[in-house]
């Protein structure tokens, strides 16, 4: 079993099995849980930030132009962003196989 699945020597564990690296779940890909992906229509987008606020998976990041872009490494495809976009700028599209 590879190390990133947790199998390491007991000698390498911090006391108490504490995890010393904060927020290291960023390394963990949840994007492959997804069947649908959000697609943004920048024409309609008003950069209100609702998708950013409501994404349970913290996928949205602001780009240089101020648009909120979904990081598909994490996006599980729940569709909350699309359902709550006030301008219907996001559509959920079936992932291509």
């Amino acid at each position, binding site marked *: 079993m590879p190390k990133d699945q*947790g199998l390491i020597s007991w000698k390498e564990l911090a006391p108490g*099995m504490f995890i010393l690296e904060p927020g290291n779940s*960023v390394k963990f890909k949840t994007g492959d849980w997804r069947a649908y992906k959000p697609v943004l229509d920048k024409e309609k987008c008003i950069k*209100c930030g609702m998708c950013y606020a409501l*994404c*349970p998976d913290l996928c949205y990041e602001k780009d240089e132009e101020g648009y909120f872009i979904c990081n598909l490494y994490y996006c599980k495809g729940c*569709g*909350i962003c699309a359902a*709550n976009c006030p301008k219907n700028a996001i559509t959920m599209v079936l992932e291509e196989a």
Partner: protein
Amino acid sequence: MRPELKDFKGFNLKKLPEYDGFAPGHRACQGCGTVLPLKLALKALGPNTIAVSATGCMEIISSPFPYTSWRVPWIHVAFENSASVASGIEAAIKVLKRKGKISKREKINVVVFAGDGATFDIGLQFLSGALERGHDFIYICLDNEAYMNTGVQRSSATPFGAHTTTSPAGKVIKGQVTWKKNLMGIVVAHNIPYAATASPAYPVDLMNKVKKASLVNGPAFLHVFSPCPTGWGCKSEDSVLLAKLAVETRIFPLYEVIDGKYILNRKIDKPKPIEEYFKLQRRFRHLTPEQIEYIKKRVDEEYEKVVKLSECFGIES
């Protein structure tokens, strides 16, 4: 109004803080309406925060070794005792500040995240003790209305009529037979400075309430409505919509109680039909017209109580 809240400034949706105390890569279900308010709360609190989790979904999805989604210091001890653990942390901070081992100027938020089972049921005594002792901490109950972590068993927060695996919609008894416990009433009876209900459908309101909770000296409590697509049998994209409908149907009124004074945040004069809320969820699919009638009546009664309480203090939202 409490002096700590005098200069309170709310958040702006367009300019939310960049810092997230919670990291992506967590294992919550698609469309989880419980991790969503958790994320928002940590955003509101910022990095100078110590978090305590009760056992439950949020603890499980955030910490499968060797990964952690917590960017703030975090501890999980057991199911029932997160309020006591937090009170120990708060006491330690207090005395270590007095002894000069922690800088006196440093404001450290101590926040608990616990589900409805951990709060309404198994941890109620611990919560009561911590509130009564007056620790300066924030307790956030993420209420998804059943024991989701163990496979959707009923809790005392499960709504009347709802199907769960231990309150099944049977041929004779159709779902939960009791009304949801009035937790806010219990909490408010402890005379704490700040208590509020909040919903992820109103993210800025929720964050503002978390911030207020952190500003007041003494215990603060947030009862947060937290839709669970898996447990409720709804579509993952509907969890925010359901949170919104719960407010608009008067099922989950949004209000604050500051020093015992009730403030209704959102008056619902023309409530949406409760059926709109029910029909999106499998847990209510079996409800009989009589049950729905009973629920409607009781929901209105409970809502009116909050309206009356807020009117008697005469504070406009």
